């Protein structure tokens, strides 16, 4: 494709995100105007998604130009289309295997019933891979040494409280909710990763948009860096903003102490921790939830981000 001028800007940017804790920088950036400020004359138009598939569908079919999204859907979308590019990270960590108090070793999980948010999503893959490493077999259809029953996070919390499941591998704030319901953290996912970090949310743009309007993308990144700064600089204020937005969108804000606990388990960073996404894809292949040739070579383009980081005198991030 003929490269556009490095500062070419678009008349508008359509941006998607979720009303989730792990999308806090996106929410803050939208609510406090960090994105719009950075974008200048480019009109910002936002869409809120409920789950990964809708966000992917929107990005691939050109209904949004960029979206905050989890690593699982990112990988799927890239494998299918090769038409998206991850330009930054947003959040890391914040997922754990929480189990009934009696269970203290992996071996005790044999014959138990665990939940994940959705078949083949990030946590589902993490759980299956981890179990495999512990010598416990699983199948996508729920059979094996450990039975995995994917269900919606809300149902998981209820099922755990009623003792219908023995544990669940879930993201925040549900992990904290399970702990509050008497669960014990058996595995904090970050301990499994090199450096103790793994990506939870990243920012993906349509490759076409990136090629056409590199200037706007840079503006967007600038806004993201500013929003991350706000989130990390004044967590209390950020929590208020995020909870306000969640309350407005979902009808119920999260309980404040729960939000606080969950928040402390998540790290907000622009580092996409590319290694963890790529290894996650390998894990998915390993447990049979991803098939075929998984080539993620062209997924990242971190040059614009690194340029901005360099300008700001911050450490650069790596695409491997």
């Amino acid at each position: 494709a003929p490269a556009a001028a490095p500062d070419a800007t678009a008349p508008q940017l359509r941006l998607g995100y979720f009303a989730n804790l792990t999308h806090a920088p996106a929410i803050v950036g939208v609510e406090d105007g960090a994105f719009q400020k950075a974008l200048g004359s480019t009109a910002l138009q936002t869409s809120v998604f409920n789950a990964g598939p809708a966000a992917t569908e929107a990005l691939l079919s050109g209904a949004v130009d960029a979206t905050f999204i989890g690593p699982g859907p990112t990988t799927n979308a890239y494998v299918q289309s090769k038409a998206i590019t991850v330009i930054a990270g947003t959040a890391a960590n914040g997922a754990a295997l929480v189990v009934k108090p009696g269970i203290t070793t992996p071996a005790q999980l044999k014959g138990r019933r665990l939940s994940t948010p959705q078949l083949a999503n990030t946590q589902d893959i993490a759980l299956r891979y981890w179990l495999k490493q512990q010598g416990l077999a699983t199948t996508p259809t729920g059979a094996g040494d450990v039975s995995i029953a994917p269900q919606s996070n809300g149902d998981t919390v209820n099922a755990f409280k009623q003792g219908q499941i023995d544990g669940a591998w879930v993201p925040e704030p549900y992990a904290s909710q399970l702990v509050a319901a008497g669960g014990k953290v058996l595995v904090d996912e970050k301990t499994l990763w090199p450096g103790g970090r793994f990506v939870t949310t990243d920012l993906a743009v349509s490759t076409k948009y990136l090629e056409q309007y590199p200037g706007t993308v840079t503006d967007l990144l600038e806004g993201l860096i500013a929003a991350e700064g706000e989130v990390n600089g004044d967590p209390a204020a950020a929590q208020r903003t995020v909870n306000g937005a969640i309350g407005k969108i979902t009808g119920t804000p999260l309980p404040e102490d729960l939000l606080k606990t969950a928040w402390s388990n998540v790290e907000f960073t622009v580092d996409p921790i590319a290694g963890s996404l790529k290894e996650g894809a390998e894990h998915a292949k390993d447990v049979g939830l991803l098939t075929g040739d998984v080539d993620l070579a062209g997924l990242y383009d971190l040059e614009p981000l690194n340029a901005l980081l360099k300008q700001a005198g911050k450490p650069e991030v790596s695409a491997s």
Partner: protein
Amino acid sequence: MTALPRLGADGATRPLRLLAAMRRRVLPPLLAVVLALAVWQLLVVLEVRPAYVLPAPATVFAQLGVLIGDPAFLAAVGRTLLRGLSGFAIALVIGTALGLAVARSRFVRSAIGSLLTGLQTMPSIAWFPLAILLFQQTEGAILFVVVLGAAPSIANGLIGGVDEVPPPLMRTARSLGGRGFSLVLRVILPAALPAYLAGLKQGWAFAWRSLLAGELLVIIANAASLGQMLSFYRELSNAPSLYATMIVILVIGMVVDQVFARVTNGVRERRGLSALRN
């Protein structure tokens, strides 16, 4: 003799009649509600399930009060209703046109007759990718899903109705010189009306369900909707709000049913179909 007061069904005096009407129309649903609440409360008292999954009626109704007092909730209900009505209106036009085409033309019937039911059995979730593909992030995507859910029902109702028009009436209409559009408008549609209305009612149910599912597709910030709230309450394990929202949906459904029942009863009465009941 005609001036004498008459006894019997037609002759009861006004206040008596009102009381009788009360007994017939208000008492039974009231009893049903009371019974349902009693069973519910009993389950709660017996602690069959913990309160966070099965809250007490009082809790739910308190929450219902809070929700109804919340302008944001009312706005959400209003938004969803508006979407439902506009989607239904579009489905009405498309479904009626399709239904007439299938009912009246053998060719169209064998071409797409079964397709209608096929489309109808397709779950909303399957349409989502296509809806976003076609309509991007607009209300259009939601309406698309709603229309695809409702139009086949409406069409099928109309087709059924037209197929059941008694042949003697059709012969009579044709012998009177009825042709083309005039025949359709003056004879076929009125004759098919009861089944058509039944189709509309089913269509509304499909539209409404598709809508509540479709509202999860694109969440428009600052524009909460009923479908969205429903799934969020579920996600957040907010049982009182979830049940309160279900009650709202139930009541809306029942009100709509009453509207349909009124129309249908009017139609039946005018045709002398309600003459002999029990």
